[in-house]
C-alpha cells in the first residue's frame, strides 16, 4: 500500500511537470508576443527587448521550462538576464523555493498571487461541496426509496431544471431575486475569516456556493438514485431481509454502504476539480479567486500566472485521484494495491 502511494505520487509529479511544459508550448506557439503585454503604452523597442530578456521569453521553450522547474525546487531570481541584473540591481526580485515564476503584469511572484486567491476558490468549492453532498445524496436516496412516486419524479425533475440552465443564469437569478429584490440573503461579498470572522465568511459564501451546488446537485441525485436502486436489486439485500433485519438497518448498513462507495469516487474527483477555481461562479459574484485570475492571466498573456494556476489546479485533481483510489481500498475490502 505504501509503495503504491509512493508510486502514484511520483507519477503525479511527472504528470504535473509535463502539464507545465504543455502550457508553455501552447503559450510560445501563440502568434502574439507575450513581452508586448508587459510593456505598456510608452513602449520602445529597447524596453520590449529588455522585458523579454528579463522574463526569459527570449529563451527556447525547453530551457525556459528547465529554468522554471529548477525554480520550483531551489528558488529563482528575476530578472533572468545576467546583464540586466548587473545594470539595474534595484529591479531584482527574489523568488524563493518553491518559485512558480514572477508576474510582470502584477509585479509580484506568482506564488503570492496564488496564496492570496486560493482561499477564495477553496472556500467556495468546499462550501458548495458540503451543500451538494448533503442535498444531492440525501434527495437521491429518498428518490430511490420512493421510486416511481410523485416524490421521486418531483426530485429528479426539479434537479434537472437546475442542471439544464447555465451556471451564470442560475447565479444571476439567485443574485437578483434572493439578494437584491427580496433581500432574503445579504449581497454576497467574500470576506476572509481573518477579516470578518466565520459568520461573515459564511454569509459571503452562501449564494455563490448555492449556485455551484445547484449545478452539481442534479448529477448527484441521479447518481445516488441509480446506485441505490442497483444495490437494492443485489442478492445480499435479500439476504439481509431474510435474516429479519429492520428496514432501517437494511438501508443504513447494507444498502448505503454498497451504494455510496462509487459516489465517494466521483465526489472526490469533483471536489479536486473545483478547488483549482471556478470561472463562471467567481465571475458572476465578483469573487477574486483562482478561476477569475486564470481567465485574466490568459487574456493578458501573463504566462507565469497561467502556468502557476494550471499547476495548482492540476495538483488538486491529481491529489484527489490518488486520495480517491486509496480511499477505495479502505472502503472496499476486495480492493488491494501492491
Amino acid at each position, binding site marked *: 500500500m505504501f509503495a503504491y502511494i509512493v508510486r502514484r505520487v511520483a507519477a503525479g509529479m511527472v504528470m504535473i511537470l509535463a502539464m507545465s511544459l504543455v502550457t508553455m508550448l501552447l503559450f510560445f506557439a501563440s502568434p502574439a508576443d507575450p513581452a508586448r503585454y508587459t510593456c505598456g503604452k510608452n513602449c520602445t523597442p529597447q524596453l520590449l527587448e529588455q522585458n523579454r530578456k528579463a522574463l526569459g521569453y527570449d529563451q527556447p521553450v525547453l530551457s525556459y521550462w528547465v529554468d522554471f522547474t529548477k525554480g520550483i525546487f531551489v528558488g529563482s531570481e528575476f530578472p533572468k538576464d545576467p546583464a540586466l541584473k548587473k545594470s539595474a540591481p534595484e529591479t531584482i526580485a527574489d523568488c524563493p523555493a518553491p518559485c512558480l515564476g514572477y508576474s510582470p503584469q502584477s509585479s509580484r511572484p506568482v506564488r503570492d498571487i496564488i496564496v492570496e486567491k486560493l482561499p477564495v476558490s477553496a472556500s467556495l468549492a468546499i462550501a458548495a461541496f458540503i451543500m451538494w453532498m448533503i442535498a444531492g445524496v440525501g434527495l437521491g436516496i429518498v428518490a430511490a426509496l420512493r421510486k416511481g412516486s410523485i416524490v421521486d419524479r418531483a426530485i429528479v425533475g426539479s434537479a434537472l431544471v437546475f442542471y439544464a440552465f447555465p451556471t451564470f443564469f442560475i447565479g444571476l437569478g439567485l443574485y437578483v431575486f434572493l439578494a437584491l429584490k427580496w433581500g432574503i440573503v445579504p449581497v454576497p461579498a467574500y470576506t476572509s475569516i481573518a477579516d470578518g470572522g466565520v459568520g461573515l465568511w459564511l454569509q459571503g459564501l452562501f449564494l455563490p456556493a448555492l449556485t455551484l451546488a445547484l449545478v452539481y446537485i442534479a448529477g448527484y441525485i441521479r447518481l445516488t438514485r441509480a446506485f441505490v436502486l442497483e444495490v437494492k436489486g443485489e*442478492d445480499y439485500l435479500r*439476504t439481509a*431481509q*431474510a*435474516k*429479519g433485519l429492520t428496514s432501517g438497518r437494511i438501508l443504513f448498513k447494507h444498502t448505503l*454502504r*454498497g451504494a455510496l462507495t462509487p459516489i465517494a469516487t466521483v465526489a472526490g474527483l469533483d471536489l479536486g476539480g473545483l478547488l483549482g477555481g471556478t470561472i463562471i461562479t467567481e465571475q458572476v459574484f465578483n469573487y477574486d479567486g483562482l478561476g477569475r485570475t486564470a481567465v485574466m492571466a490568459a487574456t493578458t498573456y501573463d504566462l507565469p500566472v497561467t502556468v502557476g494556476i494550471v499547476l495548482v489546479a492540476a495538483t488538486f485533481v491529481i491529489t484527489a485521484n490518488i486520495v480517491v483510489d486509496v480511499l477505495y481500498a479502505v472502503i472496499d475490502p476486495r480492493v488491494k494495491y501492491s
Partner: protein
Amino acid sequence: MSTWVPTEGTSDALLSVRDLKVTFPTEDGLVKAVNGLTFDLNAGETLGIVGESGSGKSVTSQAIMGLHRGTRAKVEGSIDFDGKNLLKLEDEELRVMRGRDIAMIFQDPLSALHPYYTVGNQIIEAYKVHHGSASKAAVRAHVIDMLERVGIPNPQKRIDQYPHEFSGGMRQRAMIAMALVNSPRLVIADEPTTALDVTVQAQILDLLIDLQKDINAAIIIITHDLGVVAEMADKIMVMYGGKAVEGGTADQTFYSPEHPYTWGLLQSMPRIDRERLDRLRPIPGNPPSLISPPSGCAFHTRCAYRDDENLGCSTIVPEFDVQDWHPVRCLIPAPKRKAIFDTEIRTPSS
C-alpha cells in the same frame, strides 16, 4: 412421515400451504407465477420442490419468507406456519420470524453475502437481531462454534475474513451457518448447490442433512436437479407452470414417476447407473407462458403422450389423480401411465 396428499382445510403440520397464488402485474399482462399450490410439511421433514426455470419454485419460497411484501406481487391463499397464517401477519411480526423461525439459503453465496462486511460480522448480525441481549463475547463464541459445525476449518481466523477470501464451497458453508445460527424450525434452501462444483455439491447436501438432524428443522430444498433431492428429500413435489403436477415420496417420484413431465426430467438427466443411451432426451419446447398458459393441461403442448380426442388434454384442466398417496395431475388413466412408464421410460429402447 406423512404421505404427500394435498388436502383442503387445516392441518397440524408445521407448514401448511393452501391454494397459494402469486401473481405479478406486468405491461404484457398478469404473470401467474404460482397458480394454486397446496402442500404440508412436518417438523424434521425434507420436501424437494423440483421444476425448470419459471415453474414457480423460487417464487413459492419467497412467498413463504414474505419477501414479496412491498413489491407489486399479489399473494393469495394461505401459508400457515405453526398455526399462524403468514400472509396475515403484520410486517413487524413477520420480520421477527424471518431468520429466527424460517431461514433461507440462497443459490449463489458470493452475491448473497455482502462484499464489504466480514463473514463473522454478517453471521453475528443475523444472531444479534433476534438475541439482542446476548453479550458480544458470547455471540462471537457461538458463531465460531457454528462455523466449526458447518465444517469451516480454523474458524477463529475465518470469522474475520471477507466473503471474497472464501472458496465457493466455504462460502456456502458460511451461508448455511448464517441460516442455522438461530436454530430455525424451517430452512428454505433455494438451489443451494447449483453454483458449486460437483465435488462440493454432495458435501453441502450431506452437511445440510446432518445439521437438520441436530436441530430437527424442516427443510424445503428447491432445485431443478432431481438428483439433488433424490437422496435427501422425504417427499418431492414436481412443479410445472406454477402448479404441482406430481408429488410423492422420493422413491415414488424417482423410481415410479407417473407424470410425463417428470419422465422428461428424468430422461434429460445424465445417469451413470443406467445403460448408456445414445444421447440425453431433452423435453421439447419451452416452459409455458405464465401470462396466458396453455388451455387444458399446461404440459400438453410438450407432452409426447397427449391424446386430445379421447382424453381432451388441450381442453380439460387435470385435477390431481391420487392413487396410493401418489397424486399426479394427468388425464391419462393411472393403469396406462404405469404401463407407459414400465415399457418406455424405465427400460428405454436403445
